[in-house]
């Protein structure tokens, strides 16, 4: 626990460097949108705070847990989403594979990698209609199964 303390402090320190900057509020708004979109993807049971509970986007008065917006130095935008997988979804995919109607995607790469791709496309589609930049990449963390 004590080892995760410095990390937790480090994240707000960097984001609060531009406190009052509209960019930062945008990050929270972006994270909220991403969180909503990801939760709607079939197979996602919810968002997870990640190992050590540090995965969140912090803003004034609130924090979006499970989604981190990274602005990297090379001007790339990376979304980090921490997902709890629905166990029922895995079971249904398994049942479907037994009746030989598995999606070729899942059969090739595995259910979870396919789900990660689905999350990415959902985010890409949701971002299209807004003024949010298209992310350079979306890192999907499967943290737990529920």
């Amino acid at each position, binding site marked *: 626990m004590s080892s995760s303390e410095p990390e937790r402090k480090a994240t707000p320190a960097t984001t609060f460097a531009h406190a009052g900057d509209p960019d930062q509020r945008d990050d929270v708004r972006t994270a909220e949108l991403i969180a909503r979109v990801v939760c709607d993807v079939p197979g996602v049971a919810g968002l997870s705070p990640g*190992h050590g509970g540090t995965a969140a986007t912090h803003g004034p008065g609130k924090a979006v847990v499970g989604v981190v917006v990274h602005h990297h130095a090379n001007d790339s935008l*990376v*979304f980090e989403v921490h997902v709890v*997988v629905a166990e029922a979804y*895995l079971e249904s*995919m*398994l049942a479907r*594979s037994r009746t030989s109607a598995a999606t070729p995607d*899942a*059969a090739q*790469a*595995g*259910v*979870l*990698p396919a789900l*990660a*791709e689905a999350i*990415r496309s959902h985010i890409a589609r949701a971002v299209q209609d807004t003024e949010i930049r298209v*992310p350079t*990449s*979306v*890192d*999907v*963390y*499967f*943290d*737990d*199964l529920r």
Partner: protein
Amino acid sequence: MSETHVEPSTSRQIPPEKTSSRAATPVDTSIAPPTTSIAPTTVQAVQLDSGRGKTIIADTVVAKIAAAAAREVDGVHELVSLGAGAAIAGIAGRLTRADQRTTGVSVEVGQREAAIDLNVTVDYGVSIPQVADAVRQNIIDRVRFMTGLVVKEVNFNAADLYFSEEHAAAQPRVQ
């Protein structure tokens, strides 16, 4: 004498391969055993996707999938944790209502491969090697299907036997 010299050298070549395929990063593997026993809670599988981002599957997820696959096999009574430390952790976990679904499973995940250790209580009356093989196959298939990870090894430890009511009653007793 020359033959006995060959054997140790070939057997010595195998462990580095094994450890390098298991380890997530090519760290110095000479001290791998102590680190891997601590690592599973923090080490995660990283699978790089084509430019759209990383997909990271936590050890917990792989462990839960493996445990579910193992429990499905007939002859597997329960998965149990081993050792005094594990027993204490088990009691603490039960008291705090921690998730019991990863009990008895430890997972090491690399980039594309995984190794899984199991502690199993086996039903009395079944062939343990056959149950072990069935468990192995089921885990390999299931983890491959769910996560895309290749399971390199499943180490099956029959930790105890479970006697059902009828078997317990049928035990001849010497008095």
